[in-house]
């Protein structure tokens, strides 16, 4: 025993494992790759939703429904997958090629057997049938011819292979022509083989018709093999055989590379496009409605009254389509509730005829009529049309409130100025508003009475929209969006004399989901 030193056990392990490295099996990396590909598909965002509660939960629900409706098939080819698939494809292509070649070989083998049999038979029959060209002793010239032909064919072929690519189609034709010649030669020399060769060629022709470059190349290989078969059958030079085999293998290699190249370029072009073009975004927004001008939409007498825009809710779903990485066009539908209140009024009751022109009083005879403050009490002259009104007691702040519901269909463009984890977008477009319910009511501390519908509202109106969008990308597919938008109504009232230029401001918030 060689006397070794005593060592502290810790020391021993520390020293020995200092530069320890070990290679895991290749399987590990394969597993990692496939797992990464999976991960991309099922990112877990659901737990995050619940944390946001309230609106977010509602949105989640909408989103799930939206997802089911708009995205029945899940397709997200990840980059990793693509690569793998590319390789697989090429593999399978070469695989499909292989059996064909094998097939030919088999046939050739079969034909070889046949020929040898035939040859024997023929030799036996030699005396009887001197016209049979296949009989060995007499056949020398034919065989020689054939060999030279083959050699020439092969040489031609080699140079053509070096020429490569573009001239493929013409090349194919040439080869086909060569093949025909050869066939004829074979036919002339050997009837038995005549049977097998055309069937092989038929096979070839099919492939040429249906398949791409790769297969064409492969067919070339077969072509050579055909020649091979002839050469081996006639048992002349082994040199040509070798040359031919080399050719075919060279061909095959080339074709595989070409195929890979082709698929690679295909993959690259695919990558340049946005991965998921469609995006669905449910959203809610507090919307503030007000007018840019002093006028009143209800009656000119309220033009100088205090008007307060109210904050209401808009909610809806938008679907957008990415034209490029940065530019997308979107549309959708949302429900917009708007309201505003007019103050400094007082109320009276009187006949409907005295009521406000812009309100449909629903055929009631005696109605509540809001008028400018002071119109009834301070103005008792006979000319005052409001003399006939009985003041209605109302305490506190009396307001005339107009509520509107629109169904909004926007058409907007969205351009990303900043497109990172955090994104900034400019938005612009217009919306078509379809009038839903509308109502004018009076509100005071002690009463809340609906008067009727406004009759001067357009059933269809338009808005011009501008805004900014901010988004935060939670994952590749999920974004959180906040979009302050300004929407200006173009023709809300049928009565063009109404000096009321309403707009609304909304801060649209929601999650969007790409598919």
């Amino acid at each position: 025993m060689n006397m070794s030193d005593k060592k502290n056990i810790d020391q021993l392990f520390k020293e020995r494992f200092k530069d320890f490295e070990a290679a895991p099996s290749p399987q590990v990396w394969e597993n990692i790759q496939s797992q990464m590909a999976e991960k991309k598909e099922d990112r877990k965002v659901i737990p995050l939703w619940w944390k946001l509660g309230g609106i977010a939960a509602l949105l989640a629900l909408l989103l799930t429904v939206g997802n089911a409706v708009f995205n029945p098939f899940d397709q997200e080819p990840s980059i990793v997958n693509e690569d793998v698939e590319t390789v697989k494809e090429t593999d399978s292509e070469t695989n499909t090629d292989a059996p064909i070649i094998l097939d030919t070989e088999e046939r050739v083998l079969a034909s070889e057997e046949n020929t040898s049999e035939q040859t024997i038979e023929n030799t036996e029959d030699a005396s009887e049938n001197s016209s049979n060209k296949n009989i060995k002793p007499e056949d020398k010239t034919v065989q020689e011819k054939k060999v030279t032909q083959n050699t020439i064919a092969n040489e031609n072929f080699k140079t053509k292979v070096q020429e490569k690519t573009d001239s493929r189609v013409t090349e194919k034709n040439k080869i086909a022509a060569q093949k025909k010649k050869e066939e004829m030669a074979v036919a002339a020399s050997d009837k038995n083989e005549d049977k097998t060769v055309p069937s092989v060629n038929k096979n070839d022709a099919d492939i040429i018709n249906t398949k791409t470059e790769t297969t064409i190349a492969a067919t070339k290989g077969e072509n050579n093999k055909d020649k091979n078969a002839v050469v081996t059958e006639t048992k002349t030079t082994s040199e040509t055989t070798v040359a031919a085999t080399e050719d075919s293998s060279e061909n095959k290699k080339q074709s595989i590379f070409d195929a890979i190249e082709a698929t690679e370029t295909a993959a690259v072009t695919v990558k340049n496009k946005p991965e998921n073009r469609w995006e669905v975004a449910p959203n809610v927004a507090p919307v503030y409605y007000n007018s840019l001008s002093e006028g009143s939409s209800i009656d000119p007498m309220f033009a100088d009254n205090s008007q307060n825009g109210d904050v209401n809710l808009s909610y809806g779903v938008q679907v957008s389509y990415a034209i490029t990485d940065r530019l997308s066009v979107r549309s959708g539908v949302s429900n917009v509730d708007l309201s505003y209140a007019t103050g400094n009024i007082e109320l009276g009751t009187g006949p409907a005829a005295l009521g406000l022109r812009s309100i449909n009083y629903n055929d009631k005879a005696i109605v509540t009529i809001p008028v400018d403050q002071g119109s009834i009490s301070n103005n008792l002259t006979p000319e005052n049309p409001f003399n006939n009104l009985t003041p209605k007691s109302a305490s506190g702040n009396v307001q005339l409130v107009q509520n509107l519901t629109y169904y909004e269909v926007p058409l907007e463009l969205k351009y990303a100025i900043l497109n990172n984890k955090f994104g900034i977008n400019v938005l612009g477009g217009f919306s078509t508003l379809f009038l839903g319910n509308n109502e004018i009511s009076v509100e005071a501390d002690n009463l809340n009475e609906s008067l009727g519908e406004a009759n001067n509202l357009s059933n269809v109106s338009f808005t011009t929209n501008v805004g900014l969008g901010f988004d935060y990308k939670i994952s590749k597919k999920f974004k959180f969006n906040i979009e302050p938008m300004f929407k200006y109504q173009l023709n809300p009232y049928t009565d063009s004399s109404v000096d009321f230029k309403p707009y609304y401001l909304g801060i649209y918030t929601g999650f969007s989901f790409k598919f």
Partner: protein
Amino acid sequence: MTLNELIILCKKQDAKAQGELYKRYSNVLFSICLRYSPNYVEAEDSLQDTFITIFKKIEQFKDKGSFEGWMKRVTVNTVLQKYRKKRVFDIRDEGQLEDEVDEQVEDNDIPLDFLLEIIQQLPDRYRLVFTMYVMDGYSHKEVADMLGITDGTSKSNLARARAILKTKIEAYNAAKEAK
């Protein structure tokens, strides 16, 4: 490609860069997995999980400190997570074993394979403490924190690990001498 470039690409989830990162570091990290695992198969499992975690969380690596150090920590944490799940450490303190035993052994050109084998054969809780404390330089406090045990348990587990390893090495040496 420099390491920095590689990290940036990996942060963008570039598949090629991930492959390159794996190529560069899988052997080092696998050696850690081997020391922490009872066998080769589990070590490979851990390595797989480790790289998934690295690719997923590479965003969180700020350019402070060494990237390799960060990856090693991820590796150790990934392995330990498995044992936390298995509740290996939910055992009663087995009583303190003071580590004042003579830990000297003869280094008789003992092959690395054998040393790895006897580490892997240790019961989980001993193996983890031993490899963390002795080979990865964690303190007893850190070991205790990471494994959710007390300092005392960490110390006594270490002592037991050493005792077992010592016995095995001595047996090996004896067998070798007998030849």
